[in-house]
């Protein structure tokens, strides 16, 4: 038993030195042998004991700082697994931030995108109301209407006049005799127009302007300016949901789901041909709708302005008619100038704007064109 105790003392396990033991050893109050025995059995104990022996402070004082830090660390700090939690939290925070950013960005974009959509919607509504309004127009009496037949007839007469020089020369002579003084006056003006007119501002009356006739094309026998070389943009037509769309798709939602059903694109010439056909068949409302759509894409289009003006005329909307006819000719495209003035004069008469009508008629007479004779007759009929 004695030997067993001895063996245990020499080689037996020793517990780590406690703070109290070290402190006791330092102060010489504890069992020195027991403490040294532990120290002799463990380098850790031995080194620690030696370390504390050299320290001037007590073990508790010496450990106070690290005790506080450890308390704080254990209470709030991270253990080995906590960095993972921290990483998870960081990841979640990052994901959340990114989501918020994406949502805000998306909302911002939506807000930006909504603006033109609203403008587009308003524009569409205005167009729709304007187009629908046409359905309520009343066609004027057939005697007053400007029909395609009348236009075609006039065109043929013009052609014949060109083909038969004698007739033309006779006619020209007649015109020349009647308006000799005025034509001379025009020629004189042309001579006087140049800048060398002694510093005076040149007379810039319309008569002095030279209107060129562009190449023409006949659609449904009606004269049109041939724009094919210049009209690359398609005519975009909003498909009316009243026509051709199944009832199941006629809600607003369906309209949004099938945007391709809303807009149909036509080439300019196809759409103009179709419009001319309507006009030729005296379907002025349909024709007008199409001409107005052409004007949405090409506001300066002389074909749409001229025939649209005539449609308005036949539908009794003389103000609109005059407005379009006024735009139906330019210096480069003077093909409809004579007709436009003639029918504008008639529109003014319908509105009892005799003064304006007379001005136009006089202009027609002065120019001695195809309508000058008719203009004379009409002018004589207008009451002062």
């Amino acid at each position: 038993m004695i030997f067993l105790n001895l063996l245990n003392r020499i080689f037996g396990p020793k517990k780590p030195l406690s703070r109290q033991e070290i402190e006791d050893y330092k102060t010489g109050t504890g069992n020195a042998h027991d403490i040294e025995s532990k120290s002799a059995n463990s380098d850790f104990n031995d080194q620690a004991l030696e370390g504390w022996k050299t320290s001037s402070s007590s073990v508790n004082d010496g450990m106070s700082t690290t005790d506080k830090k450890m308390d704080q660390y254990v209470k709030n700090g991270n253990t080995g697994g906590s960095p993972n939690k921290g990483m998870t939290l960081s990841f979640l925070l990052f994901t959340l931030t990114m989501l918020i950013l994406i949502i805000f960005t998306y909302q911002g974009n939506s807000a930006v995108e909504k603006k033109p959509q609203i403008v587009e919607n308003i524009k569409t509504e205005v167009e729709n109301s304007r187009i629908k309004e046409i359905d309520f127009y009343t066609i004027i009496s057939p005697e007053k209407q400007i029909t395609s037949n009348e236009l075609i007839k006039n065109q043929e007469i013009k052609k014949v006049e060109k083909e038969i020089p004698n007739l033309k020369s006779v006619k020209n002579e007649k015109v020349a005799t009647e308006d000799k003084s005025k034509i001379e006056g025009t020629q004189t003006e042309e001579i006087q127009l140049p800048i060398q007119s002694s510093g005076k501002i040149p007379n810039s009356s319309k008569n002095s302007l030279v209107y060129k006739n562009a190449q023409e094309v006949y659609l449904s026998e009606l004269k049109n300016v041939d724009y094919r070389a210049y009209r690359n943009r398609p005519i975009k037509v909003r498909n009316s949901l009243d026509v051709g769309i199944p009832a199941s798709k006629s809600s607003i939602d369906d309209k949004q789901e099938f945007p391709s059903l809303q807009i149909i694109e036509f080439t300019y010439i196809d759409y103009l041909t179709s419009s001319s056909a309507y006009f030729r068949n005296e379907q002025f409302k349909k024709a007008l709708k199409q001409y107005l759509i052409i004007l949405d894409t090409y506001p300066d289009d002389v074909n749409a302005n001229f025939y649209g003006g005539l449609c308005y005329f036949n539908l009794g909307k003389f103000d609109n008619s005059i407005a379009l006819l006024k735009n139906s000719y330019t210096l480069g495209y003077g093909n409809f100038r004579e007709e436009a003035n003639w029918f504008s004069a008639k529109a003014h008469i319908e509105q009892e704007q005799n003064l304006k009508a007379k001005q136009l008629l006089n202009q027609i007479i002065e120019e001695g064109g195809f309508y000058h004779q008719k203009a004379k007759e009409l002018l004589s009929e207008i009451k002062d």
Partner: protein
Amino acid sequence: MNRTRKKFEHYSDAKLLVSFRANDDKKIIGELYNRYGHLVMGTCLNYLKNKNDAEDIVMEIFMTLGDKIKKHEINYFKSWLFILTKNNCLMVLRKKKHYDTQLNEEIVAQEDEIEEIQIKEIQLTELETAIDELDPPQDEVIKLFYIQQMSYKEVSEKLNLTLNKVKSAIQNGKRNLKIKLKEHDLFKSA
């Protein structure tokens, strides 16, 4: 002290490590600090002779202990912690260029941790003979220190040796005693 739990006080070191790996409970680190913090601090003081440096190393060791426990397979925690402490101290000293000792990366269990089972197999009657066979002053020092249970100071005064020589004689005597017991197949090789 709220850095540990009552139940952990009864856990062995090995059980604490297993528990930490399973639960990630930082109060286990607190319990290990309670057990060994002052030894780590004392060791650091012994090497560095500077309280602030020693405190820094103590905190660094225990704050990174959780990661290391998960990362390493630790058989003898106390020995492992001692080597870890020594290495940290040596690194600080190396940075200060005051010390140029090779770091000891090898974790070796200390005697007090491995001899618990082996000691039961020693034939008790052979022990006295083995002690007598030790060279002087190791034989006398071992007898006075372990049998007479004298302190270092008492042994040094009795044999007229310095304290360091007493300590050295105890360490060397223990080592030689173990060798002799092994020679007689009385002490299992570690």
